[in-house]
């Protein structure tokens, strides 16, 4: 133990003797460890925030979007059968059969990405026993919003009266638009928190008239702040009846997506299968034909989001790991230089009784001290990066123990691995020749 402390002392002394050189050698490790730890922490933070956001929406939501269903190599449907098709209600199966009989065999099976309509929502509301709060959503980014002389860009979320409950938002003041507003395509708007502060300041916007893409709307309510989801804030959005958006703003009859809550988490697979059957009937799709829509659950979304962040973290970490490798090579290089420079010292130590092992341990200790110091400084560097990031963005990425432990063991291992060859060369030096070395 005393010998080890002695070696660490010698190592620090000799590193302090060439401060700039030691620092430059460490730099590779500092950058490598710093970026690995920072990337891992940021990745973990991002994943946590995505998970939290998805979970805040509830893990029992499903989303129907237009799009071609993915098929396997054999052309057979994958998800329809795998997602509990067997449990589908018998009455639905019957309906489906009746409906299919109405079509000829020659019906074109090639189905392009379909469209979603309000009729689909009505059908789901009517038929689905496992879904509640079924809402259509039509979004439009960058619409012009103006109040008096102020004009700017906002995100429009056009939806139905059930959206408030579905999303779990709360009103700060006023009312959300009603079913009547939706059926009448009335020009009412509910404002997100940031829109209110941006355009009205402390004034009360309820009952005020605003213009959206040049059309006049009346503010009926304002929402409480909800924070960020996927880096976008619902606070920056305004909410209008979906029919108003379709008829008066965009002149279309489709919706972007249909979202719904499943009555309970346990029946999520059954609910997806049920919704699928209803939608296929609604869209006149033959058995064996590909659906023109996709259904995803928030659980799937969660899985996908976490796998995406995992891949990003692995990718960025491997790039950072290359820097560690380069840093290791730098250490090896400088250790070889150090051995050559200190040949005489090695000769003296050997003449006085140092064994090969003693010399080896001395130089390996030095390279580990070099690498580990770099690692520790690198962790400090990572703390700085994530701290700055946390201060300027909403992404909180606390440094956890595992990347720190990993970084420390990695830098120790690098010091050991890249220090062995120079240390072996030092240990094998002939004492007589070393003493003659100038």
């Amino acid at each position, binding site marked *: 133990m005393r010998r080890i402390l*002695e070696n660490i002392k010698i190592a620090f002394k000799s590193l302090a003797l060439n401060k700039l050189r030691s620092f430059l050698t460490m730099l590779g490790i500092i950058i490598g460890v710093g970026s690995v730890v920072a990337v891992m922490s940021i990745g973990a933070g991002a994943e946590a925030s995505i998970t939290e956001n998805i979970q805040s929406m509830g893990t029992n939501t499903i989303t129907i979007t237009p799009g071609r269903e993915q098929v396997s190599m054999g052309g057979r449907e994958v998800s329809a059968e795998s997602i509990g098709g067997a449990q589908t209600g018998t009455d639905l199966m019957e309906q489906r059969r009746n409906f299919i009989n109405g079509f000829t065999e020659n019906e074109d099976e090639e189905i392009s990405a379909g469209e979603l309509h309000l009729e689909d929502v009505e059908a789901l509301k009517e038929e689905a026993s496992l879904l509640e709060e079924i809402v259509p959503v039509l979004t439009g980014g960058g619409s012009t919003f103006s109040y008096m002389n102020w004009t700017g860009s906002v995100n429009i979320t056009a939806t139905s009266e059930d959206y408030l409950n579905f999303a779990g938002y709360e009103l700060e003041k006023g009312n959300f638009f009603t079913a009547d507003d939706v059926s009448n395509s009335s020009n009412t708007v509910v404002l997100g928190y940031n829109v209110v502060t941006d355009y009205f300041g402390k004034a009360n916007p309820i009952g005020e008239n605003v213009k959206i893409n040049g059309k006049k709307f009346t503010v009926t309510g304002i929402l409480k702040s909800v924070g960020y989801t996927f880096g976008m804030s619902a606070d920056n959005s305004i909410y209008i009846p979906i029919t108003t958006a379709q008829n008066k703003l965009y002149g279309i009859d489709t919706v972007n997506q249909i979202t719904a809550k499943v009555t309970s988490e346990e029946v999520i697979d059954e609910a997806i299968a049920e919704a699928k059957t209803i939608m296929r009937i609604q869209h006149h799709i033959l058995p064996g034909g590909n659906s023109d829509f996709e259904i995803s659950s928030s659980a799937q979304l969660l899985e996908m989001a976490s796998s995406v962040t995992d891949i990003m973290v692995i990718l960025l970490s491997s790039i950072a790991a290359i820097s560690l490798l380069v840093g290791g090579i730098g250490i090896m290089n400088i250790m070889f230089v150090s051995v050559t420079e200190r040949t005489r010292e090695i000769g003296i130590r050997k003449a006085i*009784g*140092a064994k090969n092992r003693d010399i080896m341990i001395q130089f390996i200790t030095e390279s580990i001290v070099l690498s580990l110091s770099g690692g520790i400084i690198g962790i400090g560097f990572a703390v700085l990066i994530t701290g700055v990031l946390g201060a300027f963005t909403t992404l909180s990425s606390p440094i956890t123990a595992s990347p720190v432990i990993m970084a420390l063991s990695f830098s120790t291992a690098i010091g050991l691995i890249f220090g062995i060859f120079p240390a072996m060369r030092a240990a094998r030096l002939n004492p007589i020749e070393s003493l003659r070395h100038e």
Partner: protein
Amino acid sequence: MNMNKKIIEIKNVTKIYKIDSLKVNALNGIDLEIDNGEFLSIMGPSGSGKSTLMNILGCLDIPTSGSYLLEDEDVSKLNDNQLAEIRNKKVGFVFQTFNLLSRTNITGNVELPLIYSKGKKSRSRKDLISEVINSVGLAEWVRHRPNELSGGQRQRVAIARALVNDPAIILADEPTGNLDSRTGEEIMAIFQSLNRQGKTILFVTHEIDLAKHAGRIIYLKDGAITGEEIIKDPIDAQKRLEDMPKLEDKINSLGENISL
């Protein structure tokens, strides 16, 4: 301890260096016995095999053939690590070029052999170090580094380092070669004093005047011992120092002459 006990016994030692296909006989069958407590000088011109003999005596190298008993232990066939241990315990080196660690202070340099030897508690270590540093008269310099000392002082540090593990022999390889004559004489005085305290000292030189400080001189030429001389009345370094005018006195008298 019996003063006449043999501390070193070398029989028919040879050393052959192979340089490519060329064989160089550095030592051709050396026989040598050294008594405990002896002060022995080895003299010879360059290329006489002095250095090779010193390396073998100091256990830095092993002979090609022949036997070498150091305190009755055959050290002629030991491996690197065993030799390192013998060097640490039984040999104290004093080199012409001092060979101190320049970045380490005096205490650290003297401590070095202790770092590589097992046992010895740190308390007795500290006492031991200050004891040997005092014995060479450098007590005030313990915190200094070698490059802050004069040549003579550096060689004293080297002697202290050689003494700290209480070795069987002290090997001094032209220890005064880099020093002026007065300082060299001071170093010789230290060796003589150590010898009087019972230390066995081997002293390599090519100056007969220095060799005569020892009790016996061995002459070496072309890798063989060519002669031996017993010095009945060795030069007393201490006495010589008293007779020698100090350098500063010389400078003073020189200065007076110029001012006239």
